[in-house]
């Protein structure tokens, strides 16, 4: 039934029937078709390859100090990984700031393993031929929160401040094209080309900013984290570049994750 409808509409559009007549029904079958095969793709997700690698990197001594990350405190105590990702970003007293998962992992790599930030943030994002270690580790850590409810704390004053600041940053319009995050993700039911744009200001849709990340991105076939996602949004917003693991990105992630609070995180996913 749905199948026939989809084909019929595709044919109508191809034949030049004005979109206004077709659009209302067209959105749903295409989205439904994408969702159906998204399930197929998620069943065997190449992200698992990096999950395995990340676990190795977490448990194996490495870096100039030849230490493992097993003493890294992700907010639930040193070495506790299970559930940690679902409860970040959060405030960390040792750095007196709110950190998201990847920011915290990078912090641990610096303090425990002796890596230098300059080297870690030189090329922090995956390419076709290289996946940086923090990406693999974040994928591993995220996988240990699969099936858990998102519960980023909002207790410490700086956690509350990060939410309020993140909300401002989300709505801040500037850059060559006057775009903010909200230009694309502040209204219901919009698309760029065929890509649906969830409204992250609404709790039930905000989950889509977190769900599926870290994600295996079909375009390019690379593993990416939320640090990459937000940074690349800023590229497309025609902004200058936000610093890797900066407070700005942690604040934005606080805003997005708190909006999605209480919803179930499914673990690393697959993205378009």
């Amino acid at each position, binding site marked *: 039934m749905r199948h026939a409808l989809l084909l019929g509409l595709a044919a109508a559009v191809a034949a030049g029937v004005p979109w206004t007549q077709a659009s209302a029904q067209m959105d749903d079958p295409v989205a439904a078709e994408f969702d159906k095969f998204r399930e197929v793709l998620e069943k*065997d*997700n190449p992200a698992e*390859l990096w999950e*395995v690698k990340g676990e190795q990197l977490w448990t194996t001594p490495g870096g100039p100090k030849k230490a493992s990350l097993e003493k890294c405190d992700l907010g639930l105590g040193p070495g506790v990984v299970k559930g940690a990702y679902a409860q970040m970003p959060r405030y960390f007293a040792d750095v007196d700031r709110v950190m998201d998962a990847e920011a915290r992992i990078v912090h641990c790599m610096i303090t425990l393993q002796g890596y230098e930030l300059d080297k870690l943030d030189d090329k922090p994002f995956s390419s076709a031929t290289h996946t940086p270690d923090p990406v693999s580790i974040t994928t591993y850590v995220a996988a240990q929160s699969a099936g858990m409810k998102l519960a980023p704390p909002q207790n410490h004053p700086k956690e509350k401040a990060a939410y309020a600041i993140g909300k401002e940053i989300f709505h801040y319009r500037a850059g060559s094209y006057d775009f903010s995050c909200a230009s694309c993700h502040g209204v219901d039911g919009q698309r760029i080309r065929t890509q649906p744009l969830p409204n992250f200001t609404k709790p039930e849709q905000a989950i889509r900013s977190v769900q599926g990340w870290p994600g295996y991105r079909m375009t390019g*076939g690379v593993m990416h984290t939320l640090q990459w996602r937000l940074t690349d949004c800023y590229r497309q917003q025609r902004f200058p570049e936000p610093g890797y693991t900066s407070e700005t990105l942690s604040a934005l992630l606080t805003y997005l994750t708190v909006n999605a609070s209480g919803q179930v995180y499914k673990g690393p996913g697959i993205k378009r």
Partner: protein
Amino acid sequence: MADPMKIRATLQGDVADVRVLMAHPMETGQRKQGGQVVPLHFIQSITATLNGKQVFSADISQAISRNPVFAFKVKGAKAGDEIAVTWKDNKGETRTDKTTVRGGS
């Protein structure tokens, strides 16, 4: 050296559902990076064995997606049986990984 595959083999009745994730760039020889064409680099053949006996094999092209995923089904498998998968690419590199068939639901 190539990264390990991830292989899952789960029994459904007497059929083992085998699902394989491979880490490989599967370069088509048409992609450019920094103005230069990245040379053709892809897995050409795959074989799978059940307790050492071949059950599945394939010749494939560069049109298979990067980081390939395959699934196939093997009849007459039991829990504890060994499934081994081998791939070989056009540069002669090869990798074999194994797993044990697990009882399903």
